[in-house]
C-alpha cells in the first residue's frame, strides 16, 4: 500500500507533496499548518479555530471572501482545526488549480493587510454560534469539555477543547490574531499537498512561483507535555437529555505508537457492531443500554481512549459500569480471540483502502499525505502506519488494555437529565463546563 508522490521543500521551508491521479478532472489542494488548540495560551482558548475562520475572510490581494472565487470556479473549499493542526483545502476543476494556489499563497503570505476589526468581530459571533449549535444546544454536547478538563491538568494544552471557552473567545482581539498569524502561519510551519488531475512538474513550478516568494517565519515551538492522571475521577453533568449516559476515558499513547493501533483494535473488539463484546453484553443480550461506543481518539502528544454507553430507560449506570469493568478485565486477561483479531485487522486494513478513494476534501489522499508529513516527516508513512495493525497480536492488545485501561486510573462522567443528579454514578462530583 502506497500513495506515490513527489516531494520537494522550498527555500523558505515549505514542504510540497504532489500526487497524480487522473480519474476525474479535478485537483485537490491541501494546506496544513502545524498549529492547533494545543498551541493556545490559557485564557485564549478556542483561538486557533477562530483564526481558521479569519483565513476565509480575504487576503491583501483578494480582500473579499475566499468562498466566492473558488465556488464560482466550481470548487469546494473548507478547513478545520483540531488539537494539533489546522487544515485548509480546495477541490477544484483541474483547470483552476492555479487559482487555488494563488489564493492559498496569498493568505499564507499576505493575510494581515485585509484583516479588520469588523471582520474579526463578526466572525467571532459566527464561532460562538457554532459552539452553541454543536455543543451547548446538542444533547451530551458538553461531555467532551468536561472530560478534557478532568483528564488533564489546567495548564495542559489538551485540557481545553478546540472550540474553546466563550469567555476566552470574547476576550480575544484582532491584535491576538495578528500575533498568532506571525507566529504560526508561515511556510516553515506548513505543508502543501496537491493530488489529482495534475502534471507533477507543472505543479511544482506553479508552487515555486506562488509560494517561493513568501518569507520564512520564526521557529515554532510545539508543546510537549506528558499526560497522567493521579487518581480516578467520578463526575456528573446535568444536561438536556432524556437518557443518562456514562462516558469513560483514559490516557493512551500518541498517534502512530504501536499501542495506539492496539487500542484501536481494542475499540473494535469492544464496541464495533453486533459481534462486539460490549454491544452484546449491554445491548444485544441484556438491554441494559440503548447504545455503546468505543474509540481510540489519537492525538499528537498523547491519545485518549473513550467508552460511552447510554442507559436503556430505567436501567442504572452502575449496572452498565459493572459490565464494562468485567469486560475490560476479560480483555486484559486474555486479549482478543483469533476471530476478533481477524475481524478487527480486516476492518482496519479495508479502512486504509477506503480512506484513499478521494483526492481531497475532508480526508482523501492530499489530506492523508499532509497528515503523515506533518506528524511523522514522511508523506509515504502509510505503509508503516498499516503495518502497526499487522503487528498487533492477542497478547499485545491484552498488554495494552492492561497497561492503559486497568493499571492506570480513568475518568468516569455521568451525563444525566436536568434535576436528576441521582441517576449519575454513586458519589460523582457535579461539574458545570463553561
Amino acid at each position: 500500500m502506497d500513495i506515490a508522490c513527489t516531494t520537494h521543500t522550498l527555500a523558505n521551508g515549505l514542504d510540497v507533496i504532489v500526487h497524480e491521479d487522473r480519474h476525474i478532472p479535478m485537483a485537490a489542494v491541501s494546506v496544513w499548518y502545524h498549529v492547533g488548540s494545543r498551541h493556545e495560551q490559557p485564557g485564549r482558548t478556542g483561538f486557533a479555530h477562530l483564526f481558521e475562520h479569519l483565513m476565509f475572510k480575504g487576503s491583501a490581494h483578494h480582500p473579499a471572501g475566499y468562498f466566492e472565487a473558488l465556488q464560482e470556479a466550481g470548487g469546494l473549499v473548507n478547513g478545520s482545526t483540531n488539537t494539533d493542526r489546522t487544515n485548509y483545502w480546495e477541490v477544484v476543476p483541474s483547470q483552476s488549480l492555479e487559482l487555488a494556489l494563488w489564493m492559498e499563497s496569498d493568505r499564507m503570505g499576505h493575510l494581515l493587510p485585509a484583516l479588520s476589526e469588523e471582520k474579526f468581530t463578526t466572525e467571532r459571533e459566527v464561532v460562538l454560534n457554532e459552539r452553541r449549535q454543536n455543543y451547548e444546544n446538542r444533547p451530551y454536547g458538553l461531555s467532551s469539555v468536561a472530560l478534557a478538563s478532568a483528564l488533564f491538568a489546567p495548564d495542559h494544552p489538551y485540557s481545553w477543547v478546540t472550540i474553546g471557552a466563550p469567555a476566552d473567545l470574547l476576550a480575544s482581539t484582532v491584535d491576538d490574531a495578528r500575533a498568532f498569524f506571525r507566529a504560526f502561519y508561515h511556510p516553515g510551519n506548513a505543508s502543501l499537498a496537491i493530488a489529482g488531475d495534475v502534471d507533477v512538474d507543472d505543479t511544482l513550478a506553479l508552487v515555486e512561483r506562488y509560494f517561493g516568494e513568501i518569507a520564512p517565519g520564526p521557529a515554532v515551538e510545539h508543546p510537549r507535555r506528558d499526560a497522567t492522571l493521579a487518581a480516578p475521577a467520578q463526575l456528573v453533568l446535568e444536561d438536556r437529555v432524556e437518557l443518562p449516559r456514562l462516558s469513560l476515558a483514559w490516557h493512551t499513547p500518541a498517534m502512530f505508537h504501536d499501542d495506539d493501533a492496539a487500542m484501536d483494535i481494542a475499540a473494535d473488539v469492544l464496541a464495533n457492531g453486533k459481534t462486539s463484546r460490549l454491544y452484546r453484553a449491554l445491548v444485544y443480550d441484556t438491554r441494559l443500554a440503548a447504545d455503546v461506543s468505543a474509540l481510540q481518539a489519537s492525538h499528537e502528544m498523547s491519545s485518549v481512549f473513550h467508552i460511552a454507553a447510554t442507559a436503556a430507560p430505567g436501567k442504572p449506570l452502575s449496572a452498565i459500569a459493572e459490565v464494562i469493568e468485567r469486560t475490560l478485565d476479560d480483555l486484559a486477561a486474555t486479549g482478543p480471540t483469533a476471530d476478533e483479531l481477524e475481524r478487527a485487522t480486516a476492518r482496519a486494513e479495508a479502512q486504509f483502502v477506503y480512506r484513499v478513494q478521494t483526492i481531497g476534501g475532508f480526508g482523501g489522499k492530499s489530506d492523508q499525505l499532509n497528515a503523515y508529513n506533518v506528524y511523522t516527516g514522511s508523506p509515504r508513512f502509510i505503509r508503516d502506519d498499516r503495518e502497526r495493525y499487522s503487528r498487533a497480536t492477542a497478547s499485545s492488545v491484552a498488554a495494552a488494555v492492561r497497561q492503559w485501561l486497568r493499571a492506570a486510573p480513568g475518568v468516569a462522567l455521568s451525563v444525566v437529565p436536568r434535576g436528576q443528579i441521582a441517576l449519575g454514578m454513586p458519589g460523582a462530583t457535579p461539574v458545570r463546563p463553561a
Partner: protein
Amino acid sequence: MSRVDRTRLPAPGTPRPFTFPAVERTVLAGGLDVRLITHRAAPIVSLIALVRGGSSADPVDRPGLAAFTADLLDDGAGALDGPGLADVLARIGAEADIEVWPDATVVTITTLARHVARASALLADLLMRPRLAPADVDRVRGLRLDRLRQMRAQAATLADRALTRAIFGQHPYGHPGIGDPDAVRATTVDDIRGFHAHSYCPGGTTVVIAGDLSIAEGVALAEEAFGGWTGAPMNGRGPRPASAPESLGRVLVVPRPGASQSELRVGQVSAPRNTPDYHALLLWNAVLGGQFVSRLNLNLRQAKGYTYGVRSGFDFRRDPGPFSIHTSVQTSATAAATSEILREVAELHSTRPVTADELARAKAAVGLGYPRGFETAQQVARAVAQMSLHDIGPEHFEEFVPRLNAVTLDDVSAAAARHVRPDQLTAVVVGDPAEVEPQLRARGLSYVRAEEESA
C-alpha cells in the same frame, strides 16, 4: 521564473474532458432491474439495492413500518443470525448501510473488490431471506423506542419533524420515517413480514453494482445471487392523496425552555423530481441558499453573524417534496432571522429577482464541479440508484450540464414562481418561548404553539 501577478486572479485553463461512466442494464428472469458500472479508480465495489417501498408506503395506522422492517434485515438472514452477518461483513472489510427514504428502502454494501461475490450473496440474503424473528422484532422495538425518546431532546430533530407535519399533514410524506411510539409498540411480527412480502420483490427492486469489475462479472454475480428471486410485482404504492394540503404561511413555536439557540426551519411542499423545472430550481436555490455564497448565508452568517450557517434546498421526491431552509441562530436574533429569511425569499420573487451575474455564477458553481460526484464507486452507485428511482434515463449524466447552461433568467423566475410561494411558507422555531415569543410579537410575526408530541 516569472514574478507573481497578484493584481488579478488567474483565469482558468481549458476544461479537461470527462467521460461519464456508462451504465449497462439487464433485467433478470424474475423481473429484477440490474444496473452495472465499471469504475476502476480503486479496488472497491459498491452494491446498492433500491426497494421501491419507503416510509411513504407505511400503512396509515403503522407509521414507521418500512423503517422497522429495514432495521431487521441485518438481524439475521439466510443461514446467519445478526452477529453472524456482522462477522462476515467485518471479515470482508465491508461497510453495510440501510437507509429508509420517503420513496424507497436502500441497502448499500461497499466492499473490497476481491470479496464482491461474498458481498453480493449477503445482499441477496438481506433482501430475500431476512429472518424477521419475533425475538429480534422485540429487541429492535425497544431500541427504536429508546431512539424516539432521545429525539425529544434533539432540537434539530424536533424542528424537522414539526415542519414535516405542518406542511404535509396526512399526506404519506407527513410522518417521520421512524414512526411514533404508539405505532412502534403496536407493530407486530406479522405486520413486518407482510410489509416485507409485499414490498421486497424483484419487480419493484433495482440492484446497482458499481466498481472495480467488468460488466460481464457484474452480470454473473447478479445472476448468481438474485437469479432465483421471483415474486409478484408489488401492486403499486397504495392509494394516496393527489396532493398535500394547501398551506398558509404561519409561524409555529416548539417550546424548548432555556435553549441556548433557536433551531429554525422555513418550508413548504414544492416540486417532484420529475419536474421539467428541475435544473432551473437547482440554480434558483444556489442563489438563495444552496451553497456557502448565497443570499441567505451572506446575510445571516457573513454580514450579521447570527448563525454558523444557513442552507436551503429542494428534497426532490417522486411526489412533490419539501423545499426548506435550515438554520440554527442565536436566541436573541430568532425573530430577526425569521423575518430576514421570509424577506429574502419574497424579494427573490419580486423586487430583487435573480440577476444575470448570479445566474452565471450559479451555473459555474453547480456545473463545473459536477464531475466531482463520480469519484468513488459508491457515489456512482448512488447516482444510478437515484436515476432508477425517478425513472431518469441514462442520458442524464451527459445532459446535466448542457441543460443547466440552457436555463434562462425567465426560466428561473417562472420555475420559482410555480414551485415556491412565499405567502405559503411555514416557519418553525424550536427555542426558548420566554425569549423568542416576545421577539416575534414585536416584529409583528403572529405565531402559534405547535402541539406537544406524545412519547
